């Protein structure tokens, strides 16, 4: 009979050692809202499950050098309740709060969303747009990489055996910076994104965009970074020409699939529309 082992270490070092020394498949358990569904359906049969929720540093959000360090097992509900995170990074918090229901929110983490590596993961475009990084611990110590370098395809990541994410880091927010995330689903709750769009912009004192990052979800095998869409915004005050260029760049980046939620043509069109709307909100939040 299938009988996985279970461990709930209290330090990162112990967790890494367990993951590195495991024979067979070892899986980290954060909120379990992806892992348990896969376990129960038999898609996944790990030999070892390592629950990381008893590691104190993985459960807290701390301010760090003007930015934030969000522990890898912090739930969406905890992120939403944090005193200043949603004031500083409203796009990131609105993205994580779109995940599932109240019950799912009670457990689902940013890092589980990222490491499950679904192209439709809602928090990922928002994290990428904001310039977030992840701290990864492994047998050879720690490394820090941009969020976009973690997923490599549907369900696969660049983490090596023995490695785990310990935190998401958000940079100090520059003055006049705003972020936003929008997703489209056919109903208002409890569905998977047809398209998701994350935008973050920084403006100068006159309201002209000096820096931007645009990321799209659910339109390719991994969440996309779209430099051409960012370029369309930089130097503009979000006039009609910039919006049209943004829309065109977002559509050009799409390599979506046809499925019951949307056709290729539909997803491509919606990607342009959502990018424009998310950009408008990001500009407003930046103070334009």
């Amino acid at each position, binding site marked *: 009979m299938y009988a996985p082992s279970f461990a709930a270490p209290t330090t990162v070092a112990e967790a890494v050692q367990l993951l590195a020394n495991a024979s067979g498949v070892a899986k980290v358990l954060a*909120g*379990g809202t992806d892992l*348990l*569904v896969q376990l*129960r359906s038999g898609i996944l049969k790990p030999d070892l499950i390592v629950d990381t929720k008893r590691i104190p540093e993985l459960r807290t959000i701390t301010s760090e050098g003007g930015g934030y360090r969000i522990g890898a097992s912090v739930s969406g509900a905890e992120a939403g309740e944090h005193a200043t995170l949603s004031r500083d990074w409203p796009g990131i918090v609105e993205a994580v709060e779109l995940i599932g229901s*109240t019950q799912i929110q009670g457990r689902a983490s940013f890092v589980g969303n990222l490491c499950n590596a679904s192209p439709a993961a809602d928090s990922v475009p928002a994290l990428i747009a904001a310039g977030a990084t992840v701290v990864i611990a492994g047998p050879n110590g720690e490394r820090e990489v941009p969020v976009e370098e973690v997923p490599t395809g549907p369900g696969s990541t660049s983490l090596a055996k023995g490695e785990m994410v310990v935190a998401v880091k958000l940079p100090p927010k520059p003055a006049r910076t705003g972020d936003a995330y929008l997703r489209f689903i056919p109903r208002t*709750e*409890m569905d998977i994104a047809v398209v998701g769009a994350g935008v973050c912009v920084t403006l100068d004192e006159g309201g002209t965009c000096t820096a931007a990052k645009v990321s799209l979800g659910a339109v390719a095998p991994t969440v996309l970074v779209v430099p051409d869409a960012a370029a369309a915004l930089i130097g503009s005050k979000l006039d009609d020409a910039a919006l049209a260029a943004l829309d065109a760049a977002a559509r050009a980046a799409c390599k979506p699939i046809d499925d019951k939620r949307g056709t290729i043509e539909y997803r491509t069109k919606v990607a342009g529309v959502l990018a424009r709307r998310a950009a408008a909100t990001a500009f407003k939040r930046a103070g334009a």
Partner: protein
Amino acid sequence: MAKHHISTTINGEPVEFLCNTEQTMLDVLRDELHLTGTKEGCATGDCGACSITVDGRLVCSCLMLGVEAEGHSVETIEGMADGDQLHPLQQKFLEYAALQCGICTPGFLVASRALLERNPNPTEEEARYWLAGNLCRCTGYDKIIRAVLDTAADMRGAS
């Protein structure tokens, strides 16, 4: 592999149980502890019939392992009434006929109580969003929402 020995608190009482790694908290509640008020609708996190709170936080017990309960405080529907005295939400669900077949009811009650503990004065929209992860095939939701909002009003009046 040997079973895990778990010590936890359920509805205020210390409880110990044995479970395998792959048993969910829902399996443990129903099959090991015979607390069958918590229901299984989907086992994939979509329906909310298995709602419980863990340290006051609303979760789906079908998406939590039994082993994770170690040292935590779990509340289930069985802990809602005080002996024969129904919780105001339970009473109001009866008055409003906010249930038909009843399989979704324990989940709605546990989720609604968690809402009112955080927000004693929810708007209809807030209540509907909070309960969006609880599915009901019978009532059409309206009676449930009205029962929750009316309980909230009564409880505010009483305190």
